[in-house]
């Protein structure tokens, strides 16, 4: 039971979340490769989401099965994206060509 455990340091978690948010906003202005910025941002977002789930939602103190239930949407989201990728890769990069085609008189 979540209420039976010792209460976590909620204010400490708040400061961590605040610090990670400030770092996130700062990261987008870093003069580094876009891919690296993306990796950093996803890592920071997942860290923040984990802090909320583990301490505010008390997942750290719950049965492991609840953690598995909570993880399911994240895994499915990655699966959705990967399932869509082949379709998108199959489309030749169309939008760059289309304005010229439509501008040509027939």
């Amino acid at each position, binding site marked *: *039971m*979540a*209420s039976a455990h010792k*209460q976590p340091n*909620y*204010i400490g*978690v*708040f400061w961590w*979340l*605040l610090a990670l*948010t400030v770092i*996130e*906003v700062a*990261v*987008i202005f870093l003069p580094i490769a876009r891919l690296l910025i*993306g990796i950093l*941002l*996803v890592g*920071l*977002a997942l860290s*923040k*989401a984990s802090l*909320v*789930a583990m301490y*505010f*939602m008390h997942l750290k103190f*719950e*049965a492991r*099965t*609840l953690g598995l*239930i*909570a993880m*399911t*949407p*994240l895994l*499915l*989201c*990655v699966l*959705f*994206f990967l399932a*869509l*990728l082949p*379709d*998108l890769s199959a*489309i030749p*990069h*169309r*939008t*760059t060509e289309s304005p010229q085609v439509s501008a040509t008189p027939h």
Partner: protein
Amino acid sequence: MSQVAAITTAVEPVESPLTPESWGKLGMWVFLAADGMSFGGLLAGYGALRYGSADWPVPAGVLGIGLTAFMTFLLICSSVTMVLALAAIQRGDLRGLRTFLLLTILSGLMFLGMQAYEWSHLIHRGLTLTSNPFGARLFGTTFFIITGFHGAHVTGGVIYLSCYLVRALLGRMSQANANAIEIAALYWHFVDLVWILVFTFVYLL
């Protein structure tokens, strides 16, 4: 049949290994997992559309990062006041419950007000569900659908918590209702958690 009945009788009284004191909490977790899949589908669709687009604008160049960073801060604060409301009712402090519930609701309302301001500002600049002067048309579509879906969740959360606040003000809440507040808190934290992901994927990336 009698054997089945005997087995059922023998099994039923055993408490769930998941949440012995609260089937409601398990129900909320299952709902949140399903709801998380809705958001997951939207974010995966967003990622796929963006990946497949040649003229997707850089969000930071179109959307107000300062304002939304403050909105993120606001939701994080509301999560803290929510856990403090739960801690208050668990120790029987009804005044603390009322105060922290009110603060959580006010944070939610402020968030919604800021979202309305952001939307009206963007619509004024020409970004709508069907048009985007900054590049790919679907940028506007995905932006309004994802943030709108999240805003609807915040609205639902504000109504949900307001019901408990009214009950608390009428003196109909006690330490015995801590479990109900814990379940409501799970929903509110989920709304915060999803916003953390929306903020990163839709605004910052």
